[in-house]
Every structure is written in C-alpha cells, then in structure tokens.
C-alpha cells in the first residue's frame, strides 16, 4: 500500500499553504521529519517536514497550488513496491516543476486530427476497456492517444498504437547491449513529433530566401525603444501582418480538403516553452500598434516559459514567425505550422558588405526564408508576399501606409 505525505499544520492558525518549491525529487528516499516542501503560509514561506518515510513516487499537488493542511501532497512507495492499479499517471501532476503538460497540446489548431489524451484536469481520458487491454498487452498508457483530438482513448486505439509500436524500430537489437538508455517520447514531445510529421507529409513546402537590409529597421527600433522596450520580433510580426493583409488570397488556412479564406491576421511566433516548442498567437496584429503587440507578446512569452498558455492563446493563427537569429543561425527553412500555409524563418543580423551605388559599404543584413505550402499556394504569389515583407522591413515607415 502506498503511503502519503500530507501538508503538516505547523502553526496554530495555519489552515492551508501555497506550495512554492519541492525540496525532493521523484525517486528520492525521504526520512520522516526531513524537509520536503517549501510552502507559503499565513505567516511566511517555510519548509515543511515529511510526515512519513519512503520513496517519492508522485507529487499529488503542483507548485502554486493552495493546499489545505492534512491534504495528501506526495505519494510514497516502499522499495520495490508496485504503484497501485488505479495510478492513472496524471502526468501533469506527476512531474516536478511548474509545467502543465496540457499546454503543448493546445499548440494544435482546431481542425487537426491527432492529439494527446490528457484532459485539462490532468487525467488521461481512457475507457476502462482500453485501460485493461493496454495493461494486458503491455502498452504504456503514456503512449496512447485517441484517433481524434479530444476523444476518449478506446480499445481500437490501443490495438492501433500497439501495432505501430511493434512496427517501429525500437532500440536496435544490435546496439541493445550498449545502449545507454531508451526514453519513450513524452506526451508533449509526441505531440510535437506527430505534428511535424503530419505537416511534412501533407504540406509540400518550398522555401524562398531573400536578404533584408536592416539599417532602417535598426534605426526604427531605436526610435521606438526610447518610448518602450521593443524587440525585432514584434516589428516583424507587424510587418508580416501588414504584408499579408495586402494579399487577400493568401489569408488562408487549410481545412480538410479545402481552405478557409478571409482569416483574421492572427500571427504566431515560435517560442521555447517550458517543455519544448510552443507557438503563442497574437490576434488581429494588423489592427494593433507595435507597442500593443509588444506588451502582448512579452506576456505570452512569459506564460509560455511557465507553461501557462491557454488553448485560446495558442490557436487561430494563420502565419508563424520562427526567429533563430539570436543563435547565430544564418538561414533555415522551417516546417509549416499546419493548418497554416506560411512560416517565416528569420536568420541572424550580420554585418555584410553591400554594394550601394558604386561603393561597397558594410551594412547589417539578415536572411529571411518564407516556407509555403505548395499544395495550396503557387511560387509567384508566395514570392510577392516575401518581397512585400522584405520591403516593409527595409522601410518600416511604409507599414503605416
């Protein structure tokens, strides 16, 4: 039988505490009376002791949660003890740290089929039969996902995934002996993986690359910076939206066997989130000023890093910017974020010899690459769009036009 640590009552008036930090990790052996958690009480932030001994199997609450005294916070197992049968691995809660695993799920835009099985409360939505069959077949629950986003995992899903797992080369036999380890993809990673594969499979992409002279862009940013802290990403968001708006035919996303037209200028930007890639979306960028965009952008980035983005904040985009310039990447052609049809890969700003008139001058330039879905969009209109983006970035003042 598992044992549980509860939040101890350490003051006369203490009724609850806000969990601020775990002082132990999953797998650690804890002694009774050992400090295991840091929590904010009505008085101050204090370390709390373990109410029992054992190996930490699972955190039952999350950092940030307000927990009443005497509520279970950690599940302990004895060495070699199997977890209880109904241990449905509420993944979000089982992981240390602030990340919520459902967040990356939300990077999936509405019409996409695949999805992860974890619902908002952190439970895996799986039928009793599917659970039983998975157990019998030895398919780990965290490998399961339903055939359609938001649906329950049923027996048919287990059978399908079991076949997929058999077909997939697991750890190659030859190297099995030497392999240092094998980690199955986590829920988040799996979502990213399946989305990338899906996009590559369904969206034949072509990348068009051009060079942007950044001299005006830099002065423009400096000018703005006097008023409010502004990064290039925000300006690029605005420029892309302004460019896209002039091509009504390109304001599209794909949906089933067709396209949805006349989409709003909701622009996504790839960000490194708590558990990997996420794409927060800023709505109606064409109708917002750069300062407003910036404020929104910074708040979304903050949420992304904390794993707090909502579904709404990650859906509805029609165009994504992926900027790897800060890592020194010169140019790249990113994979399209389906169901969108465009993604702009932004490279580093580099001092470059440029011919101006008959002189060679050193100016700052960067390469931008527009990947587009060639199934839906032809080369010429995509080139025009890229050209427009380039023009606006080189003459940012034109964004006002």
């Amino acid at each position, binding site marked *: 039988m598992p044992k549980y640590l509860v939040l101890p009552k350490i003051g006369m008036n203490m009724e609850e505490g806000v969990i601020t930090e775990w002082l132990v990790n999953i797998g650690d052996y804890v002694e009774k009376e050992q400090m295991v958690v840091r929590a904010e009480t009505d008085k101050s932030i204090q370390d709390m002791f373990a109410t029992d001994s054992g190996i930490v199997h699972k955190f039952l609450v999350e950092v940030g949660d307000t927990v009443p005294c005497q509520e279970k916070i950690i599940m302990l197992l004895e060495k070699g003890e199997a977890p209880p049968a109904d241990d449905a691995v509420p993944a979000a809660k089982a992981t240390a740290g602030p990340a919520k695993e459902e967040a990356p799920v939300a990077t999936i835009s509405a019409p996409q089929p695949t999805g992860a099985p974890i619902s908002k409360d952190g439970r895996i939505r799986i*039928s*009793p*039969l*599917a659970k*039983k069959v998975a157990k019998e077949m030895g398919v780990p629950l965290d490998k399961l996902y339903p055939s*359609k986003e938001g*649906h*329950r995992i*049923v027996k048919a899903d287990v059978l399908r995934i079991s076949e997929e797992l058999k077909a997939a080369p697991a750890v190659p036999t030859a190297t099995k002996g030497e392999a240092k380890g094998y980690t199955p993809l986590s829920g988040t990673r799996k979502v990213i993986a399946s989305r990338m594969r899906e996009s590559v499979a369904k969206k034949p992409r072509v990348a068009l690359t051009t060079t942007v002279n950044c001299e005006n862009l830099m002065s423009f940013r400096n000018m703005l910076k006097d008023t409010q802290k502004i990064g290039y990403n925000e300006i690029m968001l605005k420029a892309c939206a302004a460019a896209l708006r002039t091509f009504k035919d390109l304001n599209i996303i794909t949906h089933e066997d067709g396209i949805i037209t006349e989409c709003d200028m909701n622009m996504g930007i790839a960000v490194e989130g708590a558990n990997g890639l996420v794409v927060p979306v800023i709505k109606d960028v064409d109708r917002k000023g750069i300062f407003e965009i910036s404020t929104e952008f910074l708040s979304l980035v903050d949420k992304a890093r904390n794993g707090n983005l909502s579904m709404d904040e990650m859906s509805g985009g029609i165009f994504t910017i992926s900027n790897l310039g800060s890592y020194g990447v010169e140019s790249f052609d990113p994979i399209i974020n389906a169901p969108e049809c465009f993604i702009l890969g932004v490279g580093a700003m580099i001092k470059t010899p440029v011919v101006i008139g008959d002189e060679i001058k050193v100016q700052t330039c960067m390469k931008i690459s527009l990947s587009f879905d060639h199934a839906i969009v032809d080369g010429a209109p995509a080139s025009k769009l890229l050209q427009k983006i380039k023009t606006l970035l080189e003459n940012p003042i034109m964004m006002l036009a």
Partner: protein
Amino acid sequence: MSKKTVREALNEGIREEMLRDEDVFVIGCDVGVRGNPFGVTMGLGNEFGFDRVIDAPISEPSFTGMAIGAAATGMRPIVEIMFSDWITLSSDQIINVAAKMRYMFGGKVEMPVVIRIPMGAGGGQAAQHSQCLEAWFNHIPGLKIIAPYEPADCKGLLKSAIRENNPILYFEHKRTYALKGEVPDGEYLVEIGKANIRKEGTDVTIITYSAMVKTCDAAAKKLEEEGISCEVIDLRTLLPLDYETVINSIKKTSRVVVVHEAPVRGGIGSDIVAEINERAFDYLDAPPLRVGSLNIPVPYNLTLEAATLPSVDSVMNAVKKVMSNE
C-alpha cells in the same frame, strides 16, 4: 405453430392454464362479459363461467388484495389492472402483502398470483392512461417482473408465471396487442429470467424490453445500413434480470445503450447501467447510455406525446453517441 397476435397468445395462455388447473381464475374490471377492453380475456367467461372469470367492481385495492388472499389459500389467481397507471391503487396489497407474506410468515405461505398490467402511451391517452411503472416494483424484494414483446414469449411466459409460486407482475404493452407472430400451439413454456438475443451484432449492445423492442429493431436495422452492427437483447423478464446474457454481450461489444419507454430517471435502465458498471466496468469502451421518456407526465397533444417518448431516432442518436468516443 400458427400466426397469432399478442392478444390471442395471451388469451390462449390463460385458457390453457385454466383448462390444466381448476384453481386458476381471472379477476378484474370488465374481464368477463366484455372480455377486457383490449379483448385479452374474450370468450373465457363463456367457456369457464363467470365464477372463474370474475367481473369485479371498480375496487382495485381490494380485489387485488383478495386475489392475494386467495393465492395464499390455495388458488392461482390472475388479476387484471385495466391500465398500468392504476396499479398505484393496488400497490399497498402488492408491496406490503404479496411481496412479503412468505418471508414474514417464515416461508409458510405460497403466493402464486399473477397481476397482468397493460401499460404504455400512444394516441393521446394522456397522463393517467399512459405510464410504465415497472421500475417501482423492481425496488421491492419478493416480486418478479415480466415484460415480454413477442407473441410466443407472451404466451410462454404467462403460462410459466401462472405456474410460479411467487407474486408476478406481468406488464403487457397496449401498443403490442395486435402484433402478430408465430406462436407454438398447446404446451409452451418460456423460462422466467432469460433474455433473448434478437439480433447478434459486434459494435454495440442495445438492451430493451416490451414495445421498445420494435423501436430498437428498427433503429438497429437503420444503423446496420450505416455500418454500425447492433446486438439487440429483449430482456423479457426484468426481475430476475438475465445479467449473464447482458454482460456476455457487453464483453463482445464494449458499448451499451438501454432503452425503455418509462422515464429515464429512476427507470429500470438506471439499475441495469449500475449493475453493468459494477460487473463489467473493465469491458466498457464508452459510458453506458439510457434512453427513455422525458421526465415529465405524458402530455395529451400528439406532437408533444411523440416528443416525450423514445423513438427510432433517439435510439439511433444514443447508439451513435456511444460509438463516437467523444
């Protein structure tokens, strides 16, 4: 074997048992000279005399209680309550006497009484002539409940019921009286407590009884055309309920819809779903669903009435819902 209506099958069942056992008698309002409003007891009074096919005054509580008393003293009465809605009048004697007498008296009394109860809505009979109240009695230990559909089952189960030494509520559905089917001539018994798989299927189990069998048959046929294979179970007996058949079917299909005409809330379906959850949870791929009437008195207006009762569409929708995994 010959084609007979439910009405004729019931009549034949009563007649054969009256011939077989002179302790069998019929009592109820209008059962004798008139042969009951639906013709079920037609001709029996003339054949067996009006001392054995007794026209009672409109005194349901007491003539039901009297039948119970006669049963306890060696007779085998068949009581008829003209409309199931009025079983409420007799319920004291059924619940507090018939169901409990044997147990209270240390097993020293037999209670071979059958109470026939025509039930069900249709045609604007309104709130006091339409109800299906079988679930009330499912709650009472000591009673058995039968609610057949097929003419052959009607005969076979009625004959078995008459020979039982337990109090049995036998629900007939008014809408089925004219239904025709092959009925074995002469001695034919159907075991109480056994369900019948009407149609085998692999995707979903539809559990039903009484007139809703027809609705479910039609729904299953249409669903088959849409590629959903339904297994249709006619429970026939509601208490004791054939959970073996039910659970085996669910092990095969992992999805289940229970359909009855009575309102959903507190219906037999609620009990069945609870049992399924307890006994077959690990075989379920979807939550079991119940289909029944709306939780309102049956309205008079025909459009409102139709919207109140379960339909082929509502059964199909429920099946599609359990199939959707949503």
